[in-house]
Protein backbone atom coordinates (compact mmCIF):
# COMPACT_ATOMS: atom_id res chain seq x y z
CA UNK A 1 0.00 0.00 0.00
CA UNK A 2 1.26 3.49 -0.73
CA UNK A 3 1.29 6.00 2.08
CA UNK A 4 0.14 9.48 1.16
CA UNK A 5 3.69 10.86 1.06
CA UNK A 6 4.40 8.33 -1.65
CA UNK A 7 1.13 9.17 -3.40
CA UNK A 8 2.18 12.80 -3.41
CA UNK A 9 5.53 11.86 -4.83
CA UNK A 10 3.81 9.88 -7.56
CA UNK A 11 1.51 12.68 -8.62
CA UNK A 12 1.68 13.53 -12.28
CA UNK A 13 3.50 16.76 -13.01
CA UNK A 14 2.84 18.53 -16.25
CA UNK A 15 6.20 20.27 -16.12
CA UNK A 16 7.70 16.98 -17.30
CA UNK A 17 9.31 16.00 -13.98
CA UNK A 18 6.80 13.24 -13.34
CA UNK A 19 4.96 11.80 -16.30
CA UNK A 20 2.42 9.00 -16.22
CA UNK A 21 1.67 9.71 -12.59
CA UNK A 22 -1.44 9.77 -10.43
CA UNK A 23 -3.85 12.61 -11.19
CA UNK A 24 -6.48 13.84 -8.73
CA UNK A 25 -8.49 16.90 -9.77
CA UNK A 26 -9.02 19.01 -7.70
CA UNK A 27 -5.73 18.14 -6.08
CA UNK A 28 -6.26 17.80 -2.32
CA UNK A 29 -2.51 18.11 -1.71
CA UNK A 30 -2.76 21.67 -3.04
CA UNK A 31 -6.22 22.66 -1.90
CA UNK A 32 -7.27 20.81 1.21
CA UNK A 33 -4.89 19.10 3.58
CA UNK A 34 -7.80 17.84 5.68
CA UNK A 35 -8.49 15.31 2.94
CA UNK A 36 -5.08 13.73 3.36
CA UNK A 37 -4.70 10.89 5.84
CA UNK A 38 -1.67 8.73 6.47
CA UNK A 39 -2.59 6.03 3.98
CA UNK A 40 -5.77 7.29 2.38
CA UNK A 41 -7.20 10.35 0.72
CA UNK A 42 -10.76 11.44 1.34
CA UNK A 43 -12.81 12.12 -1.74
CA UNK A 44 -15.89 14.26 -1.92
CA UNK A 45 -19.35 13.54 -3.20
CA UNK A 46 -20.15 14.84 -6.67
CA UNK A 47 -23.35 16.53 -7.78
CA UNK A 48 -24.78 13.91 -10.11
CA UNK A 49 -27.02 11.04 -9.05
CA UNK A 50 -28.51 8.28 -11.16
CA UNK A 51 -31.45 6.13 -10.22
CA UNK A 52 -33.46 3.37 -11.81
CA UNK A 53 -37.02 4.21 -12.59
CA UNK A 54 -38.67 1.40 -10.68
CA UNK A 55 -41.97 1.84 -12.46
CA UNK A 56 -40.24 0.98 -15.75
CA UNK A 57 -37.85 -1.75 -14.65
CA UNK A 58 -39.30 -5.17 -13.86
CA UNK A 59 -35.97 -6.91 -13.43
CA UNK A 60 -32.31 -6.52 -14.24
CA UNK A 61 -31.49 -9.73 -16.09
CA UNK A 62 -27.78 -10.56 -16.06
CA UNK A 63 -28.35 -13.11 -18.74
CA UNK A 64 -29.14 -10.33 -21.20
CA UNK A 65 -26.58 -7.88 -22.63
CA UNK A 66 -27.17 -4.28 -21.75
CA UNK A 67 -26.05 -1.19 -23.61
CA UNK A 68 -25.36 1.56 -21.12
CA UNK A 69 -26.62 4.50 -23.17
CA UNK A 70 -29.85 2.77 -24.15
CA UNK A 71 -30.41 1.52 -20.63
CA UNK A 72 -29.78 4.91 -19.03
CA UNK A 73 -32.11 6.62 -21.48
CA UNK A 74 -34.96 4.15 -21.09
CA UNK A 75 -34.75 3.10 -17.46
CA UNK A 76 -32.48 5.55 -15.67
CA UNK A 77 -33.13 8.98 -14.27
CA UNK A 78 -30.51 11.61 -13.47
CA UNK A 79 -30.52 14.32 -10.83
CA UNK A 80 -28.18 17.23 -10.35
CA UNK A 81 -27.98 18.54 -6.80
CA UNK A 82 -26.35 21.97 -6.38
CA UNK A 83 -23.76 22.60 -3.69
CA UNK A 84 -25.39 23.38 -0.37
CA UNK A 85 -28.47 21.31 -1.14
CA UNK A 86 -29.18 17.82 0.18
CA UNK A 87 -29.91 14.55 -1.51
CA UNK A 88 -32.15 12.48 0.74
CA UNK A 89 -31.47 8.74 0.69
CA UNK A 90 -34.22 6.78 2.34
CA UNK A 91 -33.70 3.46 4.13
CA UNK A 92 -33.37 0.59 1.69
CA UNK A 93 -32.82 2.86 -1.29
CA UNK A 94 -30.00 2.58 -3.78
CA UNK A 95 -28.59 5.28 -6.01
CA UNK A 96 -25.48 5.79 -8.10
CA UNK A 97 -23.37 8.85 -7.40
CA UNK A 98 -19.84 9.84 -8.30
CA UNK A 99 -16.88 11.42 -6.64
CA UNK A 100 -16.37 15.11 -7.15
CA UNK A 101 -12.72 14.44 -7.85
CA UNK A 102 -11.47 13.02 -11.12
CA UNK A 103 -8.93 10.27 -10.63
CA UNK A 104 -6.44 8.96 -13.15
CA UNK A 105 -4.13 6.06 -12.34
CA UNK A 106 -0.97 5.02 -14.14
CA UNK A 107 -0.54 1.44 -15.28
CA UNK A 108 1.35 0.37 -12.17
CA UNK A 109 -0.96 1.75 -9.48
CA UNK A 110 -4.34 0.38 -8.40
CA UNK A 111 -6.71 1.75 -5.79
CA UNK A 112 -9.79 0.89 -3.86
CA UNK A 113 -12.39 3.00 -2.18
CA UNK A 114 -13.87 2.46 1.20
CA UNK A 115 -16.54 4.21 3.17
CA UNK A 116 -15.87 6.59 6.00
CA UNK A 117 -16.70 5.04 9.33
CA UNK A 118 -18.61 8.10 10.58
CA UNK A 119 -21.00 7.76 7.67
CA UNK A 120 -21.05 3.97 7.70
CA UNK A 121 -22.19 3.96 11.31
CA UNK A 122 -25.25 5.94 10.24
CA UNK A 123 -26.06 3.33 7.62
CA UNK A 124 -24.50 4.81 4.51
CA UNK A 125 -22.77 2.28 2.28
CA UNK A 126 -20.88 3.90 -0.55
CA UNK A 127 -19.66 1.06 -2.69
CA UNK A 128 -20.36 -2.45 -3.77
CA UNK A 129 -17.43 -2.73 -6.13
CA UNK A 130 -14.42 -1.12 -4.51
CA UNK A 131 -11.54 -1.92 -6.81
CA UNK A 132 -10.12 0.62 -9.23
CA UNK A 133 -7.85 -0.82 -11.86
CA UNK A 134 -4.58 0.57 -13.13
CA UNK A 135 -5.21 2.95 -16.01
CA UNK A 136 -8.58 4.09 -14.69
CA UNK A 137 -9.57 7.68 -15.45
CA UNK A 138 -12.72 9.50 -14.44
CA UNK A 139 -14.93 10.35 -11.51
CA UNK A 140 -15.42 7.16 -9.52
CA UNK A 141 -18.95 5.81 -9.59
CA UNK A 142 -20.23 5.23 -6.07
CA UNK A 143 -23.01 2.83 -5.22
CA UNK A 144 -24.85 4.47 -2.35
CA UNK A 145 -27.19 2.45 -0.21
CA UNK A 146 -28.89 3.35 3.05
CA UNK A 147 -28.89 0.22 5.17
CA UNK A 148 -29.96 2.19 8.21
CA UNK A 149 -33.39 2.89 9.56
CA UNK A 150 -33.72 6.61 9.04
CA UNK A 151 -33.35 8.76 5.93
CA UNK A 152 -29.95 10.31 5.45
CA UNK A 153 -29.26 13.74 3.98
CA UNK A 154 -26.04 13.78 2.03
CA UNK A 155 -24.52 16.84 0.41
CA UNK A 156 -22.45 17.23 -2.75
CA UNK A 157 -19.00 18.36 -1.77
CA UNK A 158 -18.95 16.46 1.51
CA UNK A 159 -16.12 13.98 2.13
CA UNK A 160 -17.84 10.67 1.43
CA UNK A 161 -15.22 7.99 0.92
CA UNK A 162 -11.54 7.27 1.26
CA UNK A 163 -9.17 6.10 -1.40
CA UNK A 164 -6.28 3.73 -0.79
CA UNK A 165 -3.51 3.18 -3.33
CA UNK A 166 -1.49 0.09 -4.09
CA UNK A 167 1.63 -0.40 -6.09
CA UNK A 168 1.08 -3.12 -8.70
CA UNK A 169 3.98 -5.51 -9.10
CA UNK A 170 4.97 -5.00 -12.72
CA UNK A 171 3.06 -2.55 -14.90
CA UNK A 172 -0.16 -3.81 -16.41
CA UNK A 173 0.06 -4.36 -20.13
CA UNK A 174 -1.81 -2.04 -22.43
CA UNK A 175 -4.19 -4.84 -23.44
CA UNK A 176 -5.14 -5.43 -19.83
CA UNK A 177 -5.26 -1.81 -18.82
CA UNK A 178 -8.55 0.00 -18.17
CA UNK A 179 -7.12 2.74 -20.36
CA UNK A 180 -7.98 1.42 -23.81
CA UNK A 181 -7.38 4.85 -25.31
CA UNK A 182 -6.38 8.15 -23.84
CA UNK A 183 -9.92 9.39 -24.02
CA UNK A 184 -11.78 7.26 -21.53
CA UNK A 185 -13.56 8.43 -18.40
CA UNK A 186 -16.62 10.34 -17.38
CA UNK A 187 -17.86 12.79 -14.81
CA UNK A 188 -21.33 11.37 -14.17
CA UNK A 189 -22.17 8.04 -12.52
CA UNK A 190 -22.65 5.29 -15.05
CA UNK A 191 -24.82 2.19 -15.01
CA UNK A 192 -22.25 0.58 -17.25
CA UNK A 193 -22.68 -1.77 -20.15
CA UNK A 194 -22.90 -5.45 -19.51
CA UNK A 195 -22.48 -8.64 -21.47
CA UNK A 196 -22.66 -12.24 -20.20
CA UNK A 197 -19.24 -13.82 -20.54
CA UNK A 198 -18.63 -16.81 -22.84
CA UNK A 199 -19.23 -19.39 -20.14
CA UNK A 200 -22.57 -17.93 -19.08
CA UNK A 201 -23.61 -17.40 -22.68
CA UNK A 202 -22.94 -21.04 -23.37
CA UNK A 203 -24.98 -22.13 -20.31
CA UNK A 204 -27.84 -19.89 -21.35
CA UNK A 205 -27.78 -21.29 -24.88
CA UNK A 206 -27.89 -24.87 -23.57
CA UNK A 207 -30.71 -24.02 -21.19
CA UNK A 208 -32.65 -22.38 -24.01
CA UNK A 209 -32.23 -25.49 -26.21
CA UNK A 210 -33.35 -27.75 -23.36
CA UNK A 211 -36.44 -25.65 -22.75
CA UNK A 212 -37.28 -25.63 -26.43
CA UNK A 213 -37.00 -29.41 -26.65
CA UNK A 214 -39.18 -29.78 -23.55
CA UNK A 215 -41.89 -27.57 -25.05
CA UNK A 216 -41.98 -29.59 -28.25
CA UNK A 217 -42.07 -32.98 -26.58
Amino acid at each position, binding site marked *: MLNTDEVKRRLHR*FDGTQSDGIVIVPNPFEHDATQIGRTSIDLRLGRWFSMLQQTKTSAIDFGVPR*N*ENAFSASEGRSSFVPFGHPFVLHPGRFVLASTFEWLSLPNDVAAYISGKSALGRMGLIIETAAGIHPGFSGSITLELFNCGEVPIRIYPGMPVCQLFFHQVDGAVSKENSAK*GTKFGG*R*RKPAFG*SYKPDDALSSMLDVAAIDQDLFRRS
Partner: protein
Amino acid sequence: MSIELISPLANTRSKLAGIIAQIEVVSGSEYPYQDSRTAVNELRSLIDRMMRRLDGFELYPPNVQKSLLRQGNYLIVIVTELLGFIVRSTSTRNLFELYYPFKEISKKFVGENVRLILSSDWQYSPFTYPYGLDELPTFILIGLPASESENALVFPTAGHELGHNRWRANEYGKALAPDLEESVYEAYEANRAEFERVFTLKGADIRNDMFVQPIIRQSVNLSLRQSEELYCDFTGLSLFGKSYLFAFDYLIAPGLSSHRDSKYPSLETRVSLLSKYAGELGFQVNGFAERFNAEKLAGAEASNFMVLMADRAVESITERLFQMAHSHVASTVGNPFSSESEAHALQCFTNGVPSERVHTLGDLMNAAWSVFNGPDLNQLNNKGQSKTQFLTDLVVKSAENLEYLSYRDAKH
Protein backbone atom coordinates in the same frame (compact mmCIF):
# COMPACT_ATOMS: atom_id res chain seq x y z
CA MET B 1 -81.88 29.36 -30.66
CA SER B 2 -79.07 31.74 -29.64
CA ILE B 3 -76.44 30.70 -27.14
CA GLU B 4 -74.91 33.07 -24.63
CA LEU B 5 -71.12 33.17 -24.47
CA ILE B 6 -69.45 32.90 -21.09
CA SER B 7 -68.27 36.27 -19.80
CA PRO B 8 -64.78 37.20 -20.98
CA LEU B 9 -63.85 37.92 -17.37
CA ALA B 10 -64.66 34.33 -16.40
CA ASN B 11 -62.64 33.07 -19.36
CA THR B 12 -59.65 35.17 -18.38
CA ARG B 13 -59.85 34.09 -14.74
CA SER B 14 -60.01 30.47 -15.85
CA LYS B 15 -57.01 30.88 -18.14
CA LEU B 16 -55.01 32.58 -15.41
CA ALA B 17 -55.93 29.79 -12.99
CA GLY B 18 -54.61 27.34 -15.58
CA ILE B 19 -51.31 29.16 -15.71
CA ILE B 20 -51.11 29.19 -11.93
CA ALA B 21 -51.64 25.43 -11.86
CA GLN B 22 -48.88 25.06 -14.45
CA ILE B 23 -46.56 27.27 -12.39
CA GLU B 24 -47.20 25.16 -9.31
CA VAL B 25 -46.12 22.04 -11.21
CA VAL B 26 -43.05 23.80 -12.55
CA SER B 27 -42.22 25.09 -9.05
CA GLY B 28 -41.80 21.50 -7.95
CA SER B 29 -39.03 20.82 -10.48
CA GLU B 30 -35.44 20.19 -9.49
CA TYR B 31 -33.54 23.35 -10.24
CA PRO B 32 -29.79 23.28 -10.79
CA TYR B 33 -29.45 26.84 -9.52
CA GLN B 34 -31.51 29.44 -7.72
CA ASP B 35 -32.11 31.93 -10.53
CA SER B 36 -34.50 29.58 -12.36
CA ARG B 37 -36.59 29.18 -9.22
CA THR B 38 -36.56 32.94 -8.66
CA ALA B 39 -37.82 33.49 -12.19
CA VAL B 40 -40.72 31.11 -11.63
CA ASN B 41 -41.62 32.97 -8.42
CA GLU B 42 -41.52 36.31 -10.20
CA LEU B 43 -43.78 35.04 -12.96
CA ARG B 44 -46.18 33.74 -10.33
CA SER B 45 -46.25 37.19 -8.74
CA LEU B 46 -47.18 38.74 -12.08
CA ILE B 47 -50.10 36.38 -12.52
CA ASP B 48 -51.28 36.96 -8.96
CA ARG B 49 -51.14 40.69 -9.55
CA MET B 50 -53.21 40.37 -12.72
CA MET B 51 -55.77 38.32 -10.81
CA ARG B 52 -56.03 41.08 -8.21
CA ARG B 53 -56.49 43.70 -10.90
CA LEU B 54 -59.48 41.76 -12.18
CA ASP B 55 -61.18 42.00 -8.77
CA GLY B 56 -62.67 45.41 -9.56
CA PHE B 57 -63.43 44.54 -13.16
CA GLU B 58 -67.16 45.39 -13.12
CA LEU B 59 -66.41 48.91 -11.90
CA TYR B 60 -64.23 49.81 -14.89
CA PRO B 61 -65.51 51.43 -18.09
CA PRO B 62 -65.76 49.07 -21.09
CA ASN B 63 -62.57 50.26 -22.79
CA VAL B 64 -60.56 49.68 -19.61
CA GLN B 65 -62.16 46.26 -19.23
CA LYS B 66 -61.14 45.28 -22.75
CA SER B 67 -57.63 46.60 -22.16
CA LEU B 68 -57.33 44.54 -18.97
CA LEU B 69 -58.48 41.37 -20.73
CA ARG B 70 -55.99 41.97 -23.52
CA GLN B 71 -53.23 42.43 -20.97
CA GLY B 72 -54.32 39.19 -19.33
CA ASN B 73 -54.07 37.36 -22.63
CA TYR B 74 -50.68 38.84 -23.38
CA LEU B 75 -49.41 37.87 -19.96
CA ILE B 76 -50.58 34.30 -20.44
CA VAL B 77 -48.83 34.08 -23.80
CA ILE B 78 -45.49 35.42 -22.57
CA VAL B 79 -45.52 33.63 -19.22
CA THR B 80 -46.29 30.31 -20.93
CA GLU B 81 -43.34 30.79 -23.27
CA LEU B 82 -41.01 31.77 -20.43
CA LEU B 83 -42.15 28.87 -18.26
CA GLY B 84 -41.32 26.50 -21.09
CA PHE B 85 -37.88 28.05 -21.36
CA ILE B 86 -37.34 27.68 -17.61
CA VAL B 87 -38.53 24.06 -17.62
CA ARG B 88 -36.08 23.25 -20.40
CA SER B 89 -33.30 24.79 -18.29
CA THR B 90 -33.72 21.87 -15.88
CA SER B 91 -32.98 19.22 -18.52
CA THR B 92 -30.18 17.01 -17.21
CA ARG B 93 -28.57 17.12 -20.64
CA ASN B 94 -27.63 20.74 -19.96
CA LEU B 95 -24.11 21.51 -18.77
CA PHE B 96 -25.00 22.82 -15.32
CA GLU B 97 -21.39 22.98 -14.21
CA LEU B 98 -20.69 25.74 -16.73
CA TYR B 99 -23.32 27.94 -15.14
CA TYR B 100 -21.20 29.33 -12.33
CA PRO B 101 -18.20 30.51 -14.40
CA PHE B 102 -20.49 31.90 -17.09
CA LYS B 103 -22.57 33.75 -14.54
CA GLU B 104 -19.39 35.32 -13.19
CA ILE B 105 -18.64 36.53 -16.70
CA SER B 106 -22.23 37.76 -17.14
CA LYS B 107 -22.15 39.74 -13.90
CA LYS B 108 -18.95 41.48 -14.92
CA PHE B 109 -20.00 42.07 -18.51
CA VAL B 110 -23.65 43.04 -18.18
CA GLY B 111 -24.17 44.05 -14.56
CA GLU B 112 -23.56 42.85 -11.04
CA ASN B 113 -27.23 42.29 -10.30
CA VAL B 114 -28.10 40.20 -13.34
CA ARG B 115 -29.63 36.80 -13.00
CA LEU B 116 -28.91 34.08 -15.52
CA ILE B 117 -30.83 31.16 -16.93
CA LEU B 118 -29.12 28.86 -19.42
CA SER B 119 -31.53 26.64 -21.23
CA SER B 120 -31.78 24.44 -24.25
CA ASP B 121 -34.34 25.09 -26.88
CA TRP B 122 -35.99 23.28 -29.71
CA GLN B 123 -34.73 25.68 -32.29
CA TYR B 124 -31.35 25.08 -33.81
CA SER B 125 -29.93 28.56 -33.51
CA PRO B 126 -28.66 29.87 -30.16
CA PHE B 127 -30.82 32.74 -28.99
CA THR B 128 -31.49 35.09 -26.13
CA TYR B 129 -34.51 36.99 -24.99
CA PRO B 130 -34.06 40.78 -25.13
CA TYR B 131 -32.54 41.94 -21.89
CA GLY B 132 -34.91 43.95 -19.77
CA LEU B 133 -38.09 41.98 -20.39
CA ASP B 134 -40.95 43.59 -18.48
CA GLU B 135 -41.71 40.22 -16.97
CA LEU B 136 -38.12 39.37 -15.89
CA PRO B 137 -36.23 42.67 -16.10
CA THR B 138 -32.88 41.65 -14.62
CA PHE B 139 -32.66 38.23 -16.23
CA ILE B 140 -30.34 37.04 -18.96
CA LEU B 141 -32.07 34.17 -20.74
CA ILE B 142 -29.87 32.26 -23.16
CA GLY B 143 -30.94 29.17 -25.04
CA LEU B 144 -28.55 26.85 -26.85
CA PRO B 145 -29.70 24.25 -29.37
CA ALA B 146 -31.25 21.28 -27.58
CA SER B 147 -29.48 18.79 -29.82
CA GLU B 148 -26.12 20.23 -28.69
CA SER B 149 -26.95 20.75 -25.03
CA GLU B 150 -24.42 18.09 -23.94
CA ASN B 151 -21.68 19.49 -26.14
CA ALA B 152 -19.40 21.96 -24.36
CA LEU B 153 -17.60 22.76 -27.61
CA VAL B 154 -20.52 24.90 -28.85
CA PHE B 155 -20.77 26.82 -25.58
CA PRO B 156 -18.74 29.78 -26.92
CA THR B 157 -21.84 30.78 -28.91
CA ALA B 158 -23.31 31.82 -25.55
CA GLY B 159 -20.77 34.65 -25.70
CA HIS B 160 -22.57 36.05 -28.74
CA GLU B 161 -25.87 35.93 -26.87
CA LEU B 162 -24.30 37.69 -23.90
CA GLY B 163 -23.39 40.49 -26.30
CA HIS B 164 -27.08 41.01 -27.06
CA ASN B 165 -27.78 41.45 -23.38
CA ARG B 166 -25.08 44.05 -22.89
CA TRP B 167 -26.20 45.85 -26.07
CA ARG B 168 -29.74 46.17 -24.74
CA ALA B 169 -28.77 46.88 -21.14
CA ASN B 170 -26.59 49.80 -22.25
CA GLU B 171 -28.84 50.95 -25.12
CA TYR B 172 -25.99 50.96 -27.64
CA GLY B 173 -28.56 51.06 -30.41
CA LYS B 174 -29.72 54.49 -29.29
CA ALA B 175 -26.13 55.72 -29.03
CA LEU B 176 -25.21 54.52 -32.53
CA ALA B 177 -28.48 55.43 -34.25
CA PRO B 178 -27.52 59.01 -35.22
CA ASP B 179 -24.26 57.91 -36.87
CA LEU B 180 -25.92 54.99 -38.59
CA GLU B 181 -28.71 57.20 -39.84
CA GLU B 182 -26.16 59.58 -41.33
CA SER B 183 -24.34 56.65 -42.96
CA VAL B 184 -27.62 55.41 -44.42
CA TYR B 185 -28.33 58.84 -45.92
CA GLU B 186 -24.83 58.88 -47.39
CA ALA B 187 -25.33 55.41 -48.85
CA TYR B 188 -28.59 56.46 -50.52
CA GLU B 189 -27.02 59.62 -51.86
CA ALA B 190 -24.08 57.67 -53.24
CA ASN B 191 -26.52 55.28 -54.96
CA ARG B 192 -29.09 57.85 -55.99
CA ALA B 193 -29.52 56.65 -59.55
CA GLU B 194 -30.31 53.11 -58.48
CA PHE B 195 -32.58 54.41 -55.69
CA GLU B 196 -34.57 56.53 -58.13
CA ARG B 197 -34.92 53.59 -60.52
CA VAL B 198 -36.04 51.07 -57.90
CA PHE B 199 -38.46 53.35 -56.06
CA THR B 200 -39.50 55.56 -59.01
CA LEU B 201 -38.89 58.66 -56.90
CA LYS B 202 -36.94 60.68 -59.40
CA GLY B 203 -35.55 63.88 -57.97
CA ALA B 204 -36.75 63.21 -54.41
CA ASP B 205 -35.00 65.01 -51.58
CA ILE B 206 -33.54 61.99 -49.81
CA ARG B 207 -33.15 63.75 -46.48
CA ASN B 208 -36.46 65.58 -46.33
CA ASP B 209 -39.00 63.97 -48.65
CA MET B 210 -41.81 62.44 -46.57
CA PHE B 211 -42.14 59.53 -48.98
CA VAL B 212 -38.48 58.70 -48.68
CA GLN B 213 -38.36 58.74 -44.87
CA PRO B 214 -40.08 55.35 -44.32
CA ILE B 215 -37.60 53.80 -46.77
CA ILE B 216 -34.67 55.37 -44.95
CA ARG B 217 -36.16 54.26 -41.63
CA GLN B 218 -36.24 50.65 -42.82
CA SER B 219 -32.57 50.77 -43.76
CA VAL B 220 -31.66 52.43 -40.46
CA ASN B 221 -33.55 49.77 -38.48
CA LEU B 222 -31.86 46.99 -40.43
CA SER B 223 -28.46 48.60 -39.95
CA LEU B 224 -29.08 48.77 -36.20
CA ARG B 225 -29.99 45.09 -36.07
CA GLN B 226 -27.00 44.12 -38.18
CA SER B 227 -24.69 46.26 -36.05
CA GLU B 228 -25.97 44.50 -32.95
CA GLU B 229 -25.24 41.11 -34.52
CA LEU B 230 -21.70 42.14 -35.43
CA TYR B 231 -21.13 43.52 -31.93
CA CYS B 232 -22.25 40.16 -30.58
CA ASP B 233 -19.96 38.23 -32.92
CA PHE B 234 -17.08 40.41 -31.76
CA THR B 235 -18.09 39.84 -28.14
CA GLY B 236 -18.03 36.08 -28.65
CA LEU B 237 -14.66 36.38 -30.35
CA SER B 238 -13.24 38.57 -27.59
CA LEU B 239 -14.54 36.30 -24.83
CA PHE B 240 -13.67 32.94 -26.33
CA GLY B 241 -11.04 33.51 -29.00
CA LYS B 242 -10.65 30.90 -31.69
CA SER B 243 -13.12 28.55 -30.01
CA TYR B 244 -15.83 31.02 -31.01
CA LEU B 245 -14.82 30.55 -34.65
CA PHE B 246 -14.79 26.78 -34.30
CA ALA B 247 -18.19 26.74 -32.62
CA PHE B 248 -19.57 29.13 -35.25
CA ASP B 249 -18.23 26.89 -38.00
CA TYR B 250 -19.52 23.72 -36.34
CA LEU B 251 -23.05 25.02 -35.95
CA ILE B 252 -23.51 27.04 -39.10
CA ALA B 253 -21.14 26.02 -41.93
CA PRO B 254 -21.80 26.02 -44.83
CA GLY B 255 -24.97 27.92 -43.96
CA LEU B 256 -28.40 27.41 -42.44
CA SER B 257 -30.36 28.63 -45.43
CA SER B 258 -29.71 29.60 -49.04
CA HIS B 259 -31.45 32.92 -48.39
CA ARG B 260 -30.17 35.68 -46.21
CA ASP B 261 -32.01 36.98 -43.16
CA SER B 262 -31.80 40.75 -43.62
CA LYS B 263 -31.60 41.36 -39.86
CA TYR B 264 -28.13 39.85 -39.98
CA PRO B 265 -25.11 40.93 -41.99
CA SER B 266 -24.51 38.49 -44.82
CA LEU B 267 -22.73 35.33 -43.81
CA GLU B 268 -19.85 36.33 -46.07
CA THR B 269 -19.52 39.61 -44.20
CA ARG B 270 -19.68 37.96 -40.79
CA VAL B 271 -17.05 35.33 -41.51
CA SER B 272 -14.81 37.80 -43.31
CA LEU B 273 -14.91 40.16 -40.35
CA LEU B 274 -14.44 37.36 -37.84
CA SER B 275 -11.36 36.22 -39.74
CA LYS B 276 -10.04 39.74 -39.94
CA TYR B 277 -10.42 40.51 -36.27
CA ALA B 278 -9.24 37.07 -35.19
CA GLY B 279 -6.02 38.04 -36.94
CA GLU B 280 -5.89 41.28 -34.97
CA LEU B 281 -6.31 39.28 -31.77
CA GLY B 282 -3.36 37.14 -32.75
CA PHE B 283 -4.79 33.93 -34.15
CA GLN B 284 -6.00 32.58 -37.46
CA VAL B 285 -8.14 29.64 -38.39
CA ASN B 286 -7.06 28.38 -41.79
CA GLY B 287 -9.74 28.23 -44.41
CA PHE B 288 -12.47 29.56 -42.11
CA ALA B 289 -14.12 31.91 -44.57
CA GLU B 290 -14.09 29.35 -47.40
CA ARG B 291 -16.32 26.96 -45.46
CA PHE B 292 -19.40 29.12 -45.85
CA ASN B 293 -21.72 29.55 -48.81
CA ALA B 294 -22.84 32.85 -50.20
CA GLU B 295 -26.40 33.82 -49.34
CA LYS B 296 -28.92 35.43 -51.64
CA LEU B 297 -31.36 38.14 -50.72
CA ALA B 298 -34.82 36.72 -51.22
CA GLY B 299 -37.03 39.77 -51.21
CA ALA B 300 -38.37 42.11 -53.84
CA GLU B 301 -35.98 44.52 -55.51
CA ALA B 302 -37.02 47.41 -53.30
CA SER B 303 -36.54 45.55 -50.04
CA ASN B 304 -33.21 44.14 -51.25
CA PHE B 305 -32.06 47.67 -52.02
CA MET B 306 -32.92 48.78 -48.49
CA VAL B 307 -30.89 45.88 -47.11
CA LEU B 308 -27.90 46.75 -49.29
CA MET B 309 -27.98 50.34 -48.10
CA ALA B 310 -28.07 49.09 -44.53
CA ASP B 311 -25.03 46.95 -45.33
CA ARG B 312 -23.15 50.03 -46.58
CA ALA B 313 -23.99 51.93 -43.43
CA VAL B 314 -22.81 49.10 -41.20
CA GLU B 315 -19.52 48.88 -43.08
CA SER B 316 -18.75 52.39 -41.90
CA ILE B 317 -18.85 51.45 -38.21
CA THR B 318 -17.46 47.92 -38.26
CA GLU B 319 -14.15 48.91 -36.74
CA ARG B 320 -15.95 50.88 -34.06
CA LEU B 321 -18.14 47.87 -33.22
CA PHE B 322 -15.11 45.63 -32.82
CA GLN B 323 -13.31 48.14 -30.60
CA MET B 324 -16.44 48.55 -28.50
CA ALA B 325 -16.84 44.82 -27.97
CA HIS B 326 -13.18 44.16 -27.39
CA SER B 327 -12.70 47.05 -24.96
CA HIS B 328 -15.89 46.16 -23.11
CA VAL B 329 -14.64 42.63 -22.57
CA ALA B 330 -11.16 43.82 -21.60
CA SER B 331 -12.42 46.41 -19.12
CA THR B 332 -14.98 44.13 -17.45
CA VAL B 333 -13.89 40.52 -17.74
CA GLY B 334 -10.19 41.26 -18.08
CA ASN B 335 -8.08 38.92 -20.15
CA PRO B 336 -10.43 36.08 -21.01
CA PHE B 337 -7.82 33.78 -22.49
CA SER B 338 -4.07 33.41 -22.46
CA SER B 339 -1.81 31.13 -24.47
CA GLU B 340 0.12 29.98 -21.39
CA SER B 341 -3.00 28.98 -19.52
CA GLU B 342 -4.50 27.36 -22.61
CA ALA B 343 -1.29 25.41 -23.15
CA HIS B 344 -1.55 23.90 -19.68
CA ALA B 345 -5.19 22.96 -20.19
CA LEU B 346 -4.25 21.47 -23.56
CA GLN B 347 -1.55 19.37 -21.95
CA CYS B 348 -4.04 18.02 -19.42
CA PHE B 349 -6.73 17.30 -22.00
CA THR B 350 -4.22 15.61 -24.29
CA ASN B 351 -3.44 13.31 -21.37
CA GLY B 352 -7.13 12.60 -20.92
CA VAL B 353 -7.60 14.42 -17.60
CA PRO B 354 -9.19 17.71 -16.53
CA SER B 355 -6.96 20.56 -15.51
CA GLU B 356 -6.35 21.15 -11.83
CA ARG B 357 -5.61 24.84 -12.35
CA VAL B 358 -8.17 27.60 -12.44
CA HIS B 359 -8.74 28.63 -16.03
CA THR B 360 -11.06 30.93 -17.86
CA LEU B 361 -13.79 29.35 -19.92
CA GLY B 362 -12.01 30.73 -22.99
CA ASP B 363 -8.83 28.80 -22.17
CA LEU B 364 -10.75 25.60 -21.58
CA MET B 365 -12.76 25.90 -24.79
CA ASN B 366 -9.69 26.74 -26.86
CA ALA B 367 -7.79 23.78 -25.44
CA ALA B 368 -10.72 21.44 -26.01
CA TRP B 369 -11.09 22.51 -29.62
CA SER B 370 -7.37 22.01 -30.18
CA VAL B 371 -7.73 18.42 -29.04
CA PHE B 372 -10.91 17.93 -31.06
CA ASN B 373 -9.23 19.20 -34.21
CA GLY B 374 -5.99 17.42 -33.38
CA PRO B 375 -4.36 14.39 -34.94
CA ASP B 376 -6.04 11.77 -32.76
CA LEU B 377 -8.81 10.87 -35.14
CA ASN B 378 -10.51 8.18 -33.07
CA GLN B 379 -13.98 9.48 -32.61
CA LEU B 380 -15.02 6.84 -30.13
CA ASN B 381 -13.15 5.54 -27.13
CA ASN B 382 -13.36 1.99 -25.84
CA LYS B 383 -16.43 2.85 -23.78
CA GLY B 384 -18.47 3.94 -26.80
CA GLN B 385 -18.07 7.57 -25.79
CA SER B 386 -17.53 10.11 -28.52
CA LYS B 387 -14.58 12.51 -28.37
CA THR B 388 -17.10 15.32 -27.98
CA GLN B 389 -18.62 13.70 -24.91
CA PHE B 390 -15.28 13.01 -23.35
CA LEU B 391 -13.91 16.50 -24.06
CA THR B 392 -17.10 17.94 -22.64
CA ASP B 393 -16.49 16.05 -19.41
CA LEU B 394 -12.91 17.35 -19.22
CA VAL B 395 -13.96 20.96 -19.87
CA VAL B 396 -16.82 20.80 -17.42
CA LYS B 397 -14.80 19.14 -14.65
CA SER B 398 -12.07 21.74 -15.11
CA ALA B 399 -14.63 24.58 -14.98
CA GLU B 400 -16.12 23.10 -11.83
CA ASN B 401 -12.88 23.84 -10.01
CA LEU B 402 -13.65 27.55 -10.08
CA GLU B 403 -16.92 27.08 -8.25
CA TYR B 404 -15.51 24.60 -5.77
CA LEU B 405 -12.54 26.80 -4.93
CA SER B 406 -14.81 29.84 -4.47
CA TYR B 407 -16.59 28.00 -1.66
CA ARG B 408 -13.32 26.88 -0.16
CA ASP B 409 -11.78 30.36 -0.39
CA ALA B 410 -14.85 31.94 1.21
CA LYS B 411 -14.13 29.97 4.35
CA HIS B 412 -10.41 30.75 4.48
